[in-house]
C-alpha cells in the first residue's frame, strides 16, 4: 500500500476528523461575519478626479473623520468605469506621504549638482512670494521676460504671456509628439480612441497600455479579449499585452513602420480596401498607393524579421475584419525611433482605407465636452519674441500642437543660444522626465529655479526656491473626459480633505507672485467661481454636478459620431496625403527612411527598449509605499541565452552603456525578449535622499538617452521634433 502523508494522517484520525460534507462546510464551525472594527458613522464620499495620469479618471474618496482612507473609481465615468489602477489606488500615499514638501524652502547651498544637498531653509509664504517676484522682476528687467521659462503641463501659459515669454516647455517630444502631429495633419485632431469594446481585430505596434494599466483601455482590451477579438502584437519583448495575444512577433526594434507600409501595399494591391469609404472620406489615396507600391512584404520581412507570409495574412485579416483598430498612445514603438512618423501615418492610413474611422470597434474621434471659456480680465501685451530657446519655432506644426522640443533645452541653456535663459518655474516635471538628466543638471546650474512640487525629488533639490503644491485630493477641478470620450462627459472634483501642512495650489502661488510683479490682471481667473462659470454652459454649478454624482453627460451616454467630411484638416476629410505637411515642405506620405535604421547589434551590443511598471507613472510614484513595495527597484531584462554567453546570472549587477551614458543595474533573465534586445522599466535611480523609499533603488534608463540638440533633432525628425530616445545601441557587461 502506498503510504502517502495524507493517508497516514487519516489513519491517525487527524485529517479525517473534520466533519465536512462534499462541498459544504461543517455547520458547527460556521459563525456570523465579524462586525467592522471601525464605526462607519462618519463616512463621507467626496467627488474626485485622479491626477496621476492624463486619463484623469473620475473617482470617489472615502473620508472617515476627516481622513481620506480609500479611493474608488466613479462608475458614472466612461473612463474609470468604477475601477482604479494600482497608481490611482495608491493616491492616498501621495497625500499622506511623510516625505512630502510641507512649507516653502529656499536653498542656502549655492552649489548645485547630482547628490548635492541644497541645505534648505524654511521660509514663510510671504518671504517666498517676495523672493520669487523680486528675482523674476530683476531678470525681466535685465534680460527680458523671454529669459524666464515655464516647464510643465502648459499650466503657466497665461503667466508667460503676462511676462512676454514664448518659452512654454513640456515633455512631449520625449513622449508622443509623433502621434500628435501625425494625427493632427491627417485627422485634424491630436488622437483617436481605440474602440476595444466593440472591436474584432487589434494590431499593436509596441502598444502596451494594457500592461501599463491605462484604465479605460486596459479594461476594454480585457473586454475585447473576452469577446474573442483577435489581438496581434509586434513588440521586441513579450509585454503583458503581447502575453494575451493570439500572435506575437518579436519585431526588430525601430522597424515597425515597415510592417505597416507593407500591409498598406498588400491591401491596396489586392484591392481589399473599402473603396466607397476611401472615396467619400479620404483624400490622397492615389498618392499613397503610389508611395506604398515599393514596400513589398518581402522587403518588410527582411527588415523586421516578421515572415512575409504572416505580413500578407495579417494585412488580409485586418482588411476583412468587421472592425479593426491599431491603438497608438505614447512612447511606444512610434515615439522612440526616427521612422515613427511613418509608422503613425501608416497606421492611420491602414485604418482609414479599411473604413475603420468613426466605426464602432475601429478608431473613434474624441468627443470632448465644451465648457464656457474663461479669460484674463485684461489681454496680455504680447510676446517679446516668437523665437524660443528650445527651437520649437523651427517646427511649425509641432508648435501649432502646442509642444516644445524638450531635449534641446539643455544645450540651449548651456550655449545661451539663441539667447540666454535665466530663470525657470518648474511645475510637475521631475528631473527624470528629461533625457540625459546629467546634461540638464549642468544647464540648471545656470538658472534661478522656482519648483512647485509635491515631493522632495531631484528637481526640488536643484531648485533655488521650493514651493509646496497641493495634491489633486486637496483641490477642486472641472475635468473634461478626453482619452476615452466616446460621448461628451465632464467630471468635477472637490477637495476631499483640507490642504495638508502649508501647501498651496499652483494658481494661488502664481497669482501671488504675479500680484507682486504687477501683472496679475493678465492671469486666468481661478477658484470656485471659475468652475461655476465653466459649467454655466449647462446651467449647472460645481455643486450641482457633485450632487449628480460628480459626473455629467450633457448629451446623454450614447456614442456620438463625427462627420468625416467636416474634420479640421484643410480638406475636411482624412488626408492620406497630408497637405499640411506638404505646405511646410515635409514629406506628406508615410515614407521609409533607410538611413534611420539602426545597424545590427554586434556581440555584446543590444537594441534598447523601455517600459514602465503598471504600478508607477513615469518617475513620480517610486517613493509611495504601497506601490514601492510591489516593485522596489527596476532591472534590465536580458534574454537568458544571450546572458549565458555573456556570463551574466539572474539578479547580478551589470553595466549598461550607451553613447550617452552608463548605468549599473541588476539583470533579470527572461525568455520573453529578443536575444539582441534589452528592456529597462523607467522611473528608478532616484538620488534624492529625501525620498526615503525610492532613494538609490535601481537605475534611470534616461541616463542612457541622448538629449539631442535642436540641429540633431531637426535632422532626425524635422516634423514632430521627437527625441527618439531609443535610437541607439547599448553595450551590456558584468559589473
Amino acid at each position, binding site marked *: 500500500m502506498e*503510504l502517502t*502523508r*495524507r493517508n*497516514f*494522517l487519516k489513519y*491517525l484520525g*487527524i*485529517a479525517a*476528523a*473534520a466533519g465536512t460534507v462534499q462541498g459544504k462546510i461543517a455547520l458547527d464551525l460556521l459563525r456570523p461575519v465579524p462586525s467592522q472594527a471601525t464605526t462607519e458613522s462618519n463616512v463621507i464620499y467626496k467627488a474626485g478626479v485622479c491626477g496621476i495620469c492624463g486619463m484623469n479618471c473620475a473617482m470617489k474618496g472615502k473620508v472617515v473623520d476627516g481622513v481620506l482612507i480609500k479611493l474608488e473609481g466613479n462608475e458614472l465615468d466612461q473612463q474609470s468605469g468604477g475601477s482604479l489602477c494600482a497608481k490611482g489606488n495608491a493616491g492616498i500615499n501621495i497625500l499622506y506621504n511623510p516625505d512630502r514638501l510641507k512649507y516653502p524652502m529656499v536653498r542656502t547651498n549655492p552649489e548645485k549638482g547630482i547628490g548635492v544637498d541644497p541645505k534648505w531653509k524654511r521660509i514663510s509664504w510671504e518671504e517666498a512670494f517676495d523672493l520669487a517676484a523680486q528675482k523674476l522682476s530683476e531678470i525681466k528687467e535685465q534680460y527680458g521676460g523671454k529669459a524666464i521659462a515655464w516647464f510643465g503641463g502648459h499650466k503657466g501659459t497665461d503667466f508667460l504671456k503676462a511676462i512676454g515669454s514664448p518659452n512654454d516647455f513640456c515633455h512631449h517630444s520625449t513622449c508622443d509628439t509623433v502621434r500628435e502631429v501625425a494625427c493632427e495633419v491627417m485627422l485634424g485632431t491630436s488622437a483617436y480612441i481605440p474602440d476595444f469594446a466593440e472591436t474584432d481585430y487589434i494590431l499593436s505596434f509596441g502598444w502596451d497600455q494594457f500592461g501599463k494599466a491605462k484604465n479605460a483601455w486596459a479594461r476594454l482590451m480585457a473586454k475585447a479579449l473576452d469577446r474573442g477579438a483577435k489581438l496581434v502584437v509586434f513588440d521586441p519583448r513579450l509585454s503583458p499585452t503581447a502575453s494575451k495575444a493570439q500572435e506575437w512577433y518579436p519585431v526588430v526594434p525601430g522597424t515597425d513602420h515597415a510592417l505597416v507600409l507593407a500591409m498598406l501595399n498588400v491591401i491596396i494591391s489586392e484591392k481589399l480596401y473599402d473603396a466607397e469609404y476611401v472615396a467619400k472620406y479620404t483624400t490622397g489615396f492615389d498618392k499613397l498607393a503610389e508611395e506604398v507600391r515599393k514596400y513589398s512584404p518581402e522587403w518588410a520581412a527582411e527588415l523586421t524579421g516578421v515572415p512575409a507570409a504572416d505580413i500578407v495574412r495579417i494585412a488580409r485579416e485586418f482588411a476583412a475584419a468587421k472592425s479593426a483598430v491599431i491603438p497608438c498612445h505614447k512612447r511606444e514603438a512610434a515615439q522612440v525611433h526616427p521612422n515613427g512618423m511613418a509608422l503613425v501615418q501608416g497606421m492611420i492610413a491602414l485604418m482609414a482605407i479599411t473604413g475603420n474611422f468613426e466605426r464602432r470597434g475601429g478608431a473613434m474621434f474624441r468627443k470632448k465636452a465644451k465648457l464656457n471659456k474663461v479669460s484674463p480680465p485684461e489681454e496680455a501685451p504680447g510676446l517679446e519674441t516668437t523665437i524660443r530657446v528650445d527651437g520649437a519655432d523651427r517646427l511649425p506644426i509641432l508648435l501649432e500642437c502646442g509642444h516644445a522640443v524638450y531635449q534641446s533645452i539643455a544645450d540651449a541653456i548651456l550655449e545661451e543660444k539663441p539667447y540666454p535663459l535665466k530663470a525657470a518655474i518648474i511645475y510637475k516635471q521631475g528631473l527624470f522626465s528629461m533625457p540625459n538628466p546629467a546634461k540638464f543638471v549642468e544647464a540648471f546650474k545656470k538658472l534661478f529655479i522656482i519648483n512647485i512640487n509635491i515631493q522632495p525629488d531631484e528637481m526640488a533639490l536643484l531648485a533655488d526656491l521650493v514651493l509646496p503644491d497641493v495634491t489633486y485630493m486637496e483641490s477642486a477641478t472641472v475635468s473634461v473626459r478626453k482619452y476615452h470620450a466616446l460621448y461628451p462627459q465632464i467630471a468635477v472634483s472637490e477637495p476631499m480633505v483640507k490642504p495638508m501642512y502649508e501647501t498651496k495650489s499652483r494658481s494661488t502661488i502664481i497669482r501671488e507672485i504675479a500680484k507682486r510683479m504687477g501683472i496679475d490682471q493678465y492671469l486666468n481667473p481661478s477658484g470656485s467661481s471659475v468652475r461655476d462659470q465653466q459649467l454655466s454652459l449647462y446651467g449647472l454649478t460645481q455643486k450641482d454636478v457633485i450632487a449628480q454624482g460628480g459626473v455629467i453627460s450633457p448629451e446623454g451616454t450614447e456614442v456620438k459620431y463625427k462627420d468625416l467630411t467636416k474634420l479640421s484638416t484643410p480638406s475636411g476629410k482624412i488626408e492620406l496625403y497630408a497637405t499640411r505637411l506638404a505646405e511646410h515642405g515635409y514629406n506628406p506620405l508615410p515614407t521609409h527612411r533607410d538611413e534611420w535604421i539602426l545597424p545590427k547589434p554586434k556581440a555584446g551590443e543590444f537594441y534598447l527598449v523601455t517600459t514602465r511598471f503598471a504600478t508607477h507613472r513615469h518617475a513620480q510614484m517610486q517613493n509611495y509605499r504601497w506601490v514601492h513595495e510591489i516593485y522596489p527597484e527596476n532591472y534590465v531584462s536580458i534574454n537568458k541565452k544571450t546572458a549565458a554567453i555573456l556570463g551574466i546570472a539572474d539578479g547580478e549587477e551589470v553595466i549598461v552603456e550607451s553613447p550617452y551614458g552608463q548605468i549599473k543595474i541588476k539583470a533579470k533573465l527572461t525568455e520573453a525578449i529578443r536575444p539582441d534586445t534589452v528592456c529597462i522599466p523607467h522611473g528608478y535611480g532616484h538620488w534624492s535622499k529625501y525620498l526615503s523609499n525610492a532613494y538609490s533603488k535601481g537605475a534611470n534608463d534616461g541616463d542612457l538617452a541622448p538629449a539631442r540638440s535642436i540641429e540633431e533633432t531637426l535632422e532626425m525628425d524635422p516634423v514632430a521634433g521627437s527625441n527618439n530616445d531609443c535610437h541607439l545601441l547599448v553595450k551590456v557587461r558584468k559589473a
Partner: protein
Amino acid sequence: MHGEVLWNVYIAIYLFLAGISAGSAVLAAVNQLFGIWEEKVTKAAAYVAPFPVMGGLLALVLDLSRPLNFYQVMLHYNWTSVMSWGVVFLNLFPPVALLFAVSHFTGWFEKYRKALAVAVMALGVGIGTYAGLLLAAISANPLWGNPVLGVLFLVSALSTGVCAAMLVAQFVFKVSHQSLKGLAVVDSTLIILELVVIAVLLIGWAVAPTGGKALQILLAGEYAGIFLGGVLVFGLLVPLALNLLELGAFGKARHIPAVAPLLVLVGGYFLRHVIVYAGQAIYPLLLG
C-alpha cells in the same frame, strides 16, 4: 516574505524540552513497572521528568504572537488540531509527573506508584508523539509533512530523556556502574534506531517527488553543517562510539563520564533546531 522565520528558537527549545520530559518519564515508568535497574534510576528519571516540559511551556508562550490570549487554548479545543491534543497532554503531564516524583521523594502513596507509572508513561508517550506530529501534521511542507519525522522525534525524545536521566543518575544518585552500562545499552539502541529512522527519512525524500528540496537543504544547503555535524556526527555517531567504548566493544571498556549523554542532548536540540528552521526555509510564504 521569502523564507520568513515565524517559528524560531523558542519552538525548537520547546520541542526539545518536551522530548526530554517524555523520554525520562517513560524511562522512570518502565523501571518502576519492570524493575530492570536499581530504584535510583527510577528516582533520577522521575525527578527529571516534570521540569523540562515546564520550561518548554514557557518557551512556547514566549513564541506566541498574542501571548495575552494564551488562556484561550485551555478553554477551547479543536480535536482536529494536533496542538489541541498537545494541550491536553501538556495540561495533564506535569501534575502527574510531579506527583510521581513527589511520591519518590517523600515516599507517600507508595501503593499507587504503579498506577502513577502507567499514567506517566501514557502521557509521556503522548507528549513525545505529539511533539513529533506537530510538524509532521503539516502535510504540505516538503520537509515537515512526513510521518517518519514524527517517529524520529519520538525516538529522539526517548533518547534525550534517557540521557538526561543518566546524567542525574550518575552525578546525583551515584548509581552503580552496572546500571549505567545498562542505560548505555538502551541509549545505544535508541541511537541506532534514530540512525535507521534518519536513513528511512532520507531514502523517503530521495524517492518522493518533493523530497529533493528537503535533501538539498539538509545535506547541501544552508543547514547542512548543523545537520551533518551537529546532529549526525556529534549528536549520534560520536556518542554511539563512546557508548560502545564504555561497553567494551573495542576491547577494554573505558569509562568516560557524562560526555556521551551530553552530546546526545546537544544533538537532540540541533535536530529540532535544524528541522524547525529548514522547514520554513524550503516552504516560503507566498504572501506577506
